[in-house]
């Protein structure tokens, strides 16, 4: 069933009785060539690209809940590729390019909106750092633009430019950044993967791996054993828990990150804007709610909810940037569990267990990476070699001394 304007019109005239479920709910087969553990954005994208780009067959995605019920439905929907380091920037730029063609490829409206992102700076030193970052982005083929105060005032006239403590001096803009309807990403990939024959098995928790002589032969699940030629794990947030079943300790801590949405407002924010003197970022959804977030709560957590001090801190950041929004009411606050890695960068790699592959450690940058993470993980699973844009995301980089630490914080996961 393809979506089109004609199809919408036809269904409108026939009482919307022709729509069908977007994916099947098959019973698991005894064995597959490739089993993906985790039916979030990354797992579904991996299955889709395995079937589409790498012509693999007999693929299953196994999800403990329902697909898209984890972090792909809990983030603040921002896409961008404004990274500094060589290990990261080509990967995220590749991801942004995949976002740009995603809806046509999947024939699914994911509401990809390249409304632009602006990182504000408040001091000369911060300006210099952002110029350097912008140059690094341009060198890797991304777009970056330094905005002076006059340009910023034109685009964001309601921001408090003359804040006595942190006056705004300018901003680094990436016009191709923006937002995407996050649930639709999971659903679009699921629908496209299902159409290519991928079995999506929901409400089926993986309870262990069958490992013999150092080789992974399949997974144990709530619905019995499922054999697999290769197993790919994409369960960011629960990586340590799942990989512990294979006897691995990871360079990862799980932390809770809160996000917020306000009541609906008339259009006020044209793009995504981030405060440079604190941790606060904000965009406006197409429904009108301001979607915003800030720092981690800072302690290990699997609770999917945070505490009030961080809510207060984020609200203070928002008030420093937009004093005019002080009367806006908060509609919802929620938390997601982040795989915070030891250098703030992700892992897409083989593991010491043969035929077991791992994708995780996304910190809070996993959503924007969804298409490229899927493509790169599929590349690794299909060819046993890393995708050219993901060669730095090795599991053993900490032992070898090749950390990718954008913020230079060291091995302290709650500071990345």
């Amino acid at each position, binding site marked *: 069933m393809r979506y089109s304007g004609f199809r919408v019109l036809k269904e409108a005239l026939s009482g919307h009785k022709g729509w069908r479920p977007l994916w099947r709910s098959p019973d698991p087969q005894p064995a597959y060539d490739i089993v993906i553990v985790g039916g979030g954005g990354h797992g579904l994208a991996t299955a889709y690209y395995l079937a589409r780009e790498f012509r693999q067959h007999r693929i299953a995605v196994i999800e403990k809940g329902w697909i898209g019920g984890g972090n792909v439905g809990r983030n603040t929907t921002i896409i961008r590729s404004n990274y500094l380091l060589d290990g990261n920037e080509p990967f995220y730029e590749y991801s942004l390019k995949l976002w740009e063609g995603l809806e046509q490829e999947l024939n699914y409206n994911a509401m990809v909106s390249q409304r632009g992102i602006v990182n504000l700076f408040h001091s000369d030193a911060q300006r210099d750092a952002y110029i350097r970052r912008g140059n690094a982005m341009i060198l890797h083929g991304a777009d970056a633009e330094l905005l002076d105060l006059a340009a910023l005032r034109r685009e964001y006239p309601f921001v408090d430019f003359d804040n006595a403590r942190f006056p705004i001096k300018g901003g680094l803009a990436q016009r191709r950044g923006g937002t995407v309807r996050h649930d639709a990403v999971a659903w679009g990939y699921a629908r496209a993967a299902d159409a290519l024959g991928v079995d999506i098995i929901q409400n089926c928790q993986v309870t262990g791996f069958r490992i013999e002589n150092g080789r992974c032969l399949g997974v144990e699940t709530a619905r019995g054993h499922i054999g697999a030629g290769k197993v790919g794990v994409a369960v960011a947030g*629960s990586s340590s828990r799942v990989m512990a079943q294979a006897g691995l300790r990871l360079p990862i801590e799980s932390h809770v990150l809160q996000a917020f949405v306000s009541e609906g407002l008339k259009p006020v924010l044209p793009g995504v804007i981030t405060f440079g003197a604190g941790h606060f970022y904000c965009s406006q959804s197409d429904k009108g709610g301001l979607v915003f977030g800030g720092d981690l709560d800072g302690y290990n957590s699997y609770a999917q909810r945070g505490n009030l001090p961080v809510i207060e801190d984020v609200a203070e950041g928002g008030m420093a940037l937009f004093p005019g929004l002080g009367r806006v009411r908060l509609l919802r606050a929620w938390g997601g569990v982040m795989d915070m890695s030891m250098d703030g960068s992700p892992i897409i790699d083989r593991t010491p267990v043969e035929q077991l592959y791992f994708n995780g450690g996304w910190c809070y940058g996993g959503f924007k990476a969804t298409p490229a993470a899927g493509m790169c993980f599929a590349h690794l699973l299909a060819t046993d070699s890393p995708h050219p844009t993901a060669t730095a995301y090795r599991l053993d980089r900490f032992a070898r001394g090749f950390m990718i630490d954008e913020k230079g914080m060291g091995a302290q996961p709650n500071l990345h």
Partner: protein
Amino acid sequence: MIIDHPLLGPCDAQEFTYKGDACLIDRPEGLGDGAEAAFHDYAYLRDNPAGLHRELWFHEQGDRSWLVVTRNTLTHEIVGVELARDVARSRGRGR
């Protein structure tokens, strides 16, 4: 969260800075055999359990003592608080 400090009584967790897993008390011997591998595991690998977690909190805006807090990472419930000094000594550190 309220941390029941062994010396000061209940304190808001906001007064504390979080460090991480209390296994950081068990720093490997720098000159021992296999020190390089031991320090890699010490610095970078974590159990990261879902459930009870023993972890180091620093009372930075209080009496500047280090505490070992036992907390449930699924519910945020705190079930035990000890002075890190006592824990370290009981584990043979600081001699």
